[in-house]
């Protein structure tokens, strides 16, 4: 994940990072009885070469857009792997502990 110089929508030169994992902690109050918060992380940054996790669909899409088809949806920096988290759930039968999959982003890629 490296710094690179680019231009923002107003043409101003800015420093932006390439697609990578970024720390993010959120409240779980409306979702689970416990824990109160979790560091779920998020993916953010530019989808430019070299890609950290290149797959052919993304490479073809970038090439298609660079050839002038700027209205096509460009590749987006998103989680491509997750960890589970132990949480407390409430159901009519009772309160129970459970390993909830896809809670914490652990790896990012351009898709």
């Amino acid at each position, binding site marked *: 994940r490296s710094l690179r110089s680019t231009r923002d929508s107003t043409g101003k030169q800015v420093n932006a990072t390439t697609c990578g994992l970024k720390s993010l902690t959120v409240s779980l109050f409306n979702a*689970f009885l*416990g824990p109160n918060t979790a560091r779920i992380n998020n993916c953010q940054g530019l989808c430019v070469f070299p890609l950290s996790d290149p797959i052919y669909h993304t490479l073809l899409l970038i090439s298609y857009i660079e050839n002038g088809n700027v209205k096509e949806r460009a590749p987006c920096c998103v989680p491509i792997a997750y960890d589970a988290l*132990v*949480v407390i759930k409430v159901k009519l039968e*009772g*309160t129970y502990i459970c390993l909830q999959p896809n809670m914490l982003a652990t790896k990012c890629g351009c898709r």
Partner: protein
Amino acid sequence: QSSPQKRQCAFKNTIANKQFEDAGDVNGSVQVCESTQCCVGYYRIINDQPRADILACDIVEKSCPNNACIAQPAQVLNNITSIKCACNTDLCNNNINWTS
């Protein structure tokens, strides 16, 4: 060398919650915590009274600044009102401080 004294917590496990059983040795209604200083209590509010579903050594909350088990704000999940507490003294999770 003496090892630090292990936390003891009230233990209750209404439906099979294997992970809580693994949090420390259980003897009747007491659990000796393997790797935490926090006790927890998870309750459902039934007929305006808290009913303990789980009392055990903590493996989820990871934080317990209080000596006594003070109820955190009630949560409504799946249309069920629940409260929980965490505390840091022996058997402190036997009672939850709660007012409806």
